């Protein structure tokens, strides 16, 4: 205990040196905490964005093969008694919404123009298309399917209406209010056709070219499939997804958002590695600065080591004292850096966060570092600082007391 007290007083006694030494750590970690908070929120937004782009938190199908080839070929995968299953799932704690979905491929024609469309269908009250300009906050209980560039989304009572991707609409020369004829091949080779009115035109990267959305009831009757191939579950929070999945009756197949949002998992892993590299660079810089500072401190305090050894202090206690000095500087720098990071994050948040723009719309990204930033900063920093003090410490105890006293 005495060693900790002496180490603490020593670093306070050499205040200026301590400040210079720990400042690299403070600034580095503060930057890292803010950056981590920003990336964390970005990734959370990215994750939620992917989930609400049409994946949902959980998808339940009759057969696992649906997840391989059933999205636009639902016919072999009819989910029997989906209403009872949907009601049962909706009663599970943590479930916000359960709704059916289907999809099909159709050739759309208008006048002398035609294009192949991938049509996805959900209940209209679960579809959201943003519109207008300024800061957008999409709802969390609907799929956010893109930004409207013309017309409107689908209302609950709408039937036989489509919201078409911008490029597909351009290829077809379709405008809001135009009628598109959709032709789909059903099981057994039957060709089914129906007229759909263009309710709106949307823009969404990657989906503009070939996607269109309609309401589930229309799609279900058009492809003559009274039962959906899949039920989509939206959870109140991510953490409840595994428990909801466990509550499913045996014999059903399911995929969680994590299984389906492969891009998010890959990007998340890359960003995690990136943060680790930045953290290592900061710790490496700290290691060199602290080792240099500790080395100077040890050399300047030869008389102290000689005296302590002469009056009976053992080598291991002197090494412990020096390691404590390094470790405490690391702890001090890590705590100060983390605190500074949280303060900067709070200031950024209080001023509305950082925004990024997508067309006319902008999205605010808050900077909210998690509590894991604290231990992810403190533990490595203390260990690094201890390591930085190790070599000077060993150097100090390898000298004889008389040599320390002579060279003081």
């Amino acid at each position: 205990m005495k060693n900790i007290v002496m180490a603490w007083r020593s670093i306070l006694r050499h205040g200026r040196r301590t400040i210079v030494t720990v400042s690299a750590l403070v600034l580095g970690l503060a930057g890292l905490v803010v950056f981590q908070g920003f990336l964390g929120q970005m990734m959370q937004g990215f994750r939620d964005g992917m989930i609400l782009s049409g994946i949902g938190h959980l998808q339940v199908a009759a057969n696992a093969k649906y997840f391989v080839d059933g999205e636009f070929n639902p016919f072999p995968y009819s989910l029997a008694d989906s209403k009872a299953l949907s009601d049962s799932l909706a009663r599970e704690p943590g479930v916000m919404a359960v709704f059916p979905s289907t999809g099909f491929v159709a050739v759309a024609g208008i006048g002398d123009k035609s294009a192949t469309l991938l049509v996805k269908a959900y209940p209209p009250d679960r579809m959201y298309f943003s519109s207008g300009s300024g800061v957008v906050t999409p709802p969390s209980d609907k799929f956010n399917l893109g930004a409207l560039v013309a017309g409107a989304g689908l209302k609950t009572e709408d039937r036989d209406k489509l919201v078409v991707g911008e490029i597909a609409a351009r290829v077809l020369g379709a405008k809001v209010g135009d009628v598109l004829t959709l032709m789909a091949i059903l099981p057994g080779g039957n060709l089914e056709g129906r007229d759909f009115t263009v309710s709106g035109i949307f823009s969404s990267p990657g989906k503009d070219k070939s996607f269109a959305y309609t309401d589930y009831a229309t799609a279900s009757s058009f492809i003559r499939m009274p039962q959906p191939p899949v039920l989509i579950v939206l959870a109140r929070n991510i953490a409840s997804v595994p428990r909801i999945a466990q509550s499913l009756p045996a014999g059903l197949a399911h995929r969680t958002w994590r299984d389906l949002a492969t891009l998010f998992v890959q990007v998340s892993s890359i960003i995690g590695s990136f943060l680790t590299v930045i953290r290592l660079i900061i710790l490496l810089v700290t290691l060199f600065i602290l080792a240099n500072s500790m080395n100077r401190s040890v050399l300047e305090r030869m008389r102290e080591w000689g005296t302590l050894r002469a009056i009976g202090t053992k080598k291991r206690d002197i090494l412990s004292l020096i390691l404590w000095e390094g470790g405490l500087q690391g702890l001090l720098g890590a705590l100060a850096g983390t605190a500074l990071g949280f303060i900067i994050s709070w200031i950024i948040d209080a001023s509305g966060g950082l925004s990024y723009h997508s067309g006319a719309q902008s999205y605010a990204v808050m900077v909210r570092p998690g509590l894991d930033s604290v231990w992810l900063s403190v533990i490595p920093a203390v260990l690094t600082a201890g390591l930085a003090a190790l070599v000077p410490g060993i150097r100090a105890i390898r000298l004889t007391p008389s040599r320390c006293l002579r060279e003081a």
Partner: protein
Amino acid sequence: MELIRIENGQKHYQLEKAEIPALEGINLVISPGERVCLMGPSGSGKSTLLNIIGCVDTLSEGRIVIAGNDASSLKDAQLSEFRNRTMGFVFQTFNLIPVLSVFENVEYPLLLQRVPKTERGARVMELLERVGLKDFHRRGPERLSGGQRQREAIARALVTRPRLVIADEPTAALDHATGKAIMELMVEMNYSAGSTLVFATHDPAVARYAGRLLTMTDGRIVEDREVA
């Protein structure tokens, strides 16, 4: 009855490729309770001999036995404990630990001995009272005068009730009057504690406090005599 015995003590320092002799053929016996002064010019080997006696350095050749312990046979940790239990040190530049208060500096050797807190407190305060620093026990050493610092160092040296006190030029950093007061205090406390005092000086006025005077030249003891 003897406290210290050195037989054919030799000490050499290696300076690049040259070997520099610091002590040559030292044969010395010091009995308990003696006050021994090492005198001689700078570089005569006084401090080296004190370091050897204080077990903070080792002989290159020869043997030193202190209180029945052959110092060369003790391992480093054992030597540390031996120094802590057997010896007290007073240095020319006081060598107080700057981050510890007056009380804590004197208490430190007792902490190493794991003396219980209440006993530590009592022993430290008793010694601080004897050296006239009781009212300064919370201060840091840097807020004391030179004489007060040396008195504090004496209290630290004696707090473990050592059998041997080693003082290297204890008055060299002090003015004449303060130096005289320090020597009187050291001799008086040494006498009352019954410990052996070995000190080095090149000041004849300080040497007068010894009962035995060893004169050193070129690493050898050239004169060993009792003084009145």
